[in-house]
């Protein structure tokens, strides 16, 4: 399949890229391209111009700084997968990365692109909701930070302006007794989630849940925060009764559509089961035996 014609630019710096975006409001940003290029081949996307970020140096970092894990726009999924820091300290992010597409796609795909594309079927948006992450948008007038809850604005829609680049993802460094997990049901490697659930939490000294974030993948027009489930568990001991109750709320509050992957009732039930499993795994990891 051949995409429609477009103009191609591969600027060497972020300011150059922003200048191009500013003078070409219909331009699309290309990072990994593993979602955008297939869409262009199907001609679901026909951008007049492609601004390829791949020639910009120094954007592939993964580092902790000032209480945040900071991930540059061009850090590939495979680099997250190979990062000892991510594997040991950010198990929710590690789980999620491993469930994105397949190993070859992950060699090219980026976390920032996964978020900026804002496909409700993508895995990282729910995980970023669970982490209460934030993103840095770089535009003509500098950087602004956007909380993840304000970032997703519906199907394929984000808070980014047409001349802004998602330059960095920031995940809060976990406090003591933290744990997280991502559970995804997929029909086969490389498929989008039938449903997915991301959980990040921490326990207080007495073992009660102090803070918890729960994000849901592909059961709504955007990644959803399971707010009632979070509220139900905050301040409680993570025992079976409370976990089941929180999972029931997630089942009720998600908004799945029927498709080839399953009907609405099936998906709701799946969300309930995956929510229980993800909470249990997150709690086990927070207790240091995950």
């Amino acid at each position, binding site marked *: 399949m051949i995409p429609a014609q*477009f103009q191609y630019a591969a600027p060497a710096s972020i300011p150059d890229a922003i200048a191009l975006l500013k003078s070409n409001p219909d331009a699309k940003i290309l990072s990994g391209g593993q979602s955008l290029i297939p869409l262009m081949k199907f001609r679901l996307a026909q951008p007049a111009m492609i601004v390829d970020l791949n020639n910009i140096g120094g954007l592939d970092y993964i580092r902790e700084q000032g209480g945040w894990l900071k991930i540059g726009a061009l850090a590939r999924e495979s680099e997250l997968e190979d990062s000892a820091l991510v594997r040991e300290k950010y198990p929710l992010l590690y789980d999620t990365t491993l469930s994105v597409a397949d190993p*070859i796609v992950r*060699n090219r795909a980026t976390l920032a692109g996964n978020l900026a594309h804002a496909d409700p079927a993508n895995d990282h948006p729910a995980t970023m909701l669970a982490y209460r992450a934030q993103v840095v948008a770089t535009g003509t007038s500098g950087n602004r930070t956007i909380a993840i809850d304000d970032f997703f604005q519906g199907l394929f829609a984000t808070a980014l302006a047409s001349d802004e680049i998602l330059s960095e993802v920031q995940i809060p460094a976990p406090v003591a007794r933290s744990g997280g997990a991502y559970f995804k049901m997929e029909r086969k490697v490389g498929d989008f989630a039938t449903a997915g659930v991301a959980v990040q939490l921490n326990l207080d000294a007495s073992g009660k849940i102090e803070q918890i974030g729960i994000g849901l993948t592909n059961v709504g027009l955007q990644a959803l925060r399971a707010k009632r489930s979070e509220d139900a568990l905050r301040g409680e001991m993570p025992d079976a009764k409370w976990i089941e109750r929180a999972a029931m709320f997630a089942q009720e509050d998600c908004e799945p559509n029927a498709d080839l992957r399953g009907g609405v009732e099936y998906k709701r039930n799946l969300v309930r089961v995956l929510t229980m499993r993800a909470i249990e795994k997150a709690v086990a990891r927070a207790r240091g035996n995950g």
Partner: protein
Amino acid sequence: MNVTININGKEYSDDVEPRLLLVHFIRENANLTGTHVGCDTTSCGACTVLVDGVPMKSCTMFAVQANGKSITTVEGLAQNGKLAPIQEGFHEKHGLQCGFCTPGMMLTSVAFLKKNPHPSEEEIRWAISGNLCRCTGYVNIVEAVQYAAEKMAEAQNG
């Protein structure tokens, strides 16, 4: 746009449209037809090539993005008329039936074995999970990769 891409040690230059996919540059501009187009939707991995040593799906990259880069395709695996260990493995272990997925399988495996020279069966299956074999001959493909790993270890110790 003018691009110059090094494929298997040889430079290929051409004036191409930005929308030309890398796989089409390899097959039609460089006339190296060992790289296959399978699903054309980033799923099957038949078009996998190494870009600066890293496996990529060449149907999901524009040729202009490979400007100045070094590509390895299946035609670049054998050296001086001698099959690479991975090719020998696919031959010895009957790792192919129709052969359509084989170039992608081999290139993914070459990069994987460089990273993980002594993999378990599970690690091999995980590594090739982005390459689909519609003949479903995965058992022999895994054995072919294991064969190559052993051959390479022998050569190193030998």
